């Protein structure tokens, strides 16, 4: 067990500019002692995957509120695989209807945190994921 902070990349794929939630999640993770890289708006799936891989992130969080979460997540997942980041735990947040949770899980998404999820849940999930990774 190392004392290095858990590293998380939070990203906004696609064109959706609603970043309130993404920034709230960033602040909650920072406050929980994690190292957070926020990509800013309108990043391509390749650029996001590249950031996650080069930052050696444990968790990559995608925030999508436009409804385009399925195609965007698929692209990021593919880019991660291509760049050797298949191990990064991918999570998705935003305006995600429950009927899409299964489809996201099929895409390899580790957890979905729809709008109004308490921040604690996300922090706990990231911590647990990091603990599993370091003991594996």
């Amino acid at each position, binding site marked *: 067990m190392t004392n290095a902070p858990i590293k998380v990349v939070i990203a906004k794929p*696609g*064109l*959706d*500019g609603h970043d*309130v939630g993404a920034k709230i999640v960033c602040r909650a993770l*920072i406050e929980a002692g994690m190292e957070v890289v926020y990509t800013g708006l309108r990043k391509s799936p390749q650029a996001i995957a590249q950031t996650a891989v080069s930052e050696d992130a444990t968790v990559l969080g995608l925030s999508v509120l*436009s409804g385009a979460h399925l195609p965007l997540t698929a692209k990021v997942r593919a880019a991660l695989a291509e760049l050797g980041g298949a191990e990064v735990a991918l999570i998705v947040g935003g*305006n995600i*209807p429950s009927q899409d949770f299964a489809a996201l899980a099929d895409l390899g998404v580790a957890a979905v945190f729809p709008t*109004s999820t308490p921040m604690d849940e996300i922090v706990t999930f990231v911590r647990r994921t990091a603990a599993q990774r370091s003991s594996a």
Partner: protein
Amino acid sequence: MSAGSSKDARPLTWESGLDIKPVYGPGELEASGGSGAIGQPGAFPYTRGIHPHMYRSRPFTMRQYSGFGTATQTHERFLYLIKQGNTGLNVAFDLPTQCGLDSDNPMAEGEVGRVGMAVDTLADMEEAFDGIPLNEISVSLTINGSAVAIMAMYFALARKRGLDLATLRGTAQNDILKEFVGRGTWIFPVEESVRLVVDTMEFCAQHAPKYSPVSVCGYHIRESGASPAQEMAYGLAIASAYLRRALERGLDADRVARGLTFNFDIYGNLWEQVCKFRAGRRLWARILRDEFGVEDPKSQQLRMIAGGGGGGLTIEQPENNIMRGAYYALASALGGTQTMALCSFDEAYTIPSEHAAKLSLRTMQLLVHEVGLADTVDPLAGSYFVETLTNEMEEKILEVMADLKERGGIVQGIAEGRVQAEVSRHAYEREKKLHSGETKKVGVNIHREEEEERVIEFHPFEQSQADEQRARLAAVRAERDPAAVESALSALGAAASSGANVMPAAIDAVEAYATVGEVCGTLRGVFGTFDEPIRF
């Protein structure tokens, strides 16, 4: 329980940071500055509203936000809304259009027609507004980053129909500074973005004086985390920044100020919203008169659209949003709005269904026709509580504006990402208060129903519509005169580099069926793009 004993009254502070007493009387009003600044309705400083008879002479305009899929579908929705009694149209565009990308751009994949109407060329606008009299229906275009292209199309459409641009009523949102703080459809760097806004202000002042080129949006800044006082302060600071630059260009203050309208948010405490509007209206009139030398009373008036705050709606127990919408509408009317648009109850998670949008419209109609909100002007005037808090709210707004000025002003603050960081810090604090229960939200942290079955009818997204839109674009590209497009775009690029107003060249370009992507691409080539500062 002993009524009136002091231990019953727990401390209460509004989100804006104003402490609220359990009882107000003449002493509190005097201490806050008295009633001298209330004035008469329709007269400076417009605390009581901008018209002498307000809704008695004309009820607020009801204008629901709409648009999705292709121009054909949006056109059908427009006709439906007009038939239902909407007196204006408020057009939503899809994200590729808002970001200045064509529907066949790889970045547009999955987003074409999703959150609004897809527009690539003038042909789409021609279809969307087919048979709708542009000089009779007031049309509001919710467009910012790519506003030059879309406004050019709207003016080109009017020109093609033989209409004098001077007869056009309506507004473009076109408030790029707030896009950097919230909403995010910026394209160019901050200074160049502001210059484009001023180009549209200049063009409208000269050619379309009844058209309002900018609707300054406190709305999205509030949605991004700001308090009501900050929302008003940032909004007025942004409006002042545009105006200052327009005056530096030698434009007439009275004329340009008249083209500035506002868009404000409503959710949370009813009284706080009402005081925000009454104080903001008064403050704006004073700023215009004292700082900008605006003398024409018509130009000193803060005209606004104010209605539903999406941020107040919840995905939990969504029918509660119908009641929230009704109270927000009440606040809007008591605040003296000119135009009202409510968020529909399903808007916390999707594009409103026809049913939900109709309920919003009926809510507004009910206020006017059944409940009596149009009976008399500014019914809260003279209330010790409301007048005291209007005074205190004005002080609070001034305080935020002074602080902003001291730190280099709003434009610099946005370019450096400081304003964004401040607003997002507030959003985080708000979230924590919601989580701890300090801020109460029915259905969320009180009266929650854990076993609730949440059935969400999501607005359908049809891939076939996106394919159809790309086919339309390909057809227009094939039919247009490529030489005419090329020469118009190079004239646009030249205007952008030389500092000349880009609007005439942009209108020529879209008339030749240059695409939104080509117009914005030309400007990107000259200005570059905004490099988002990440600050926490």
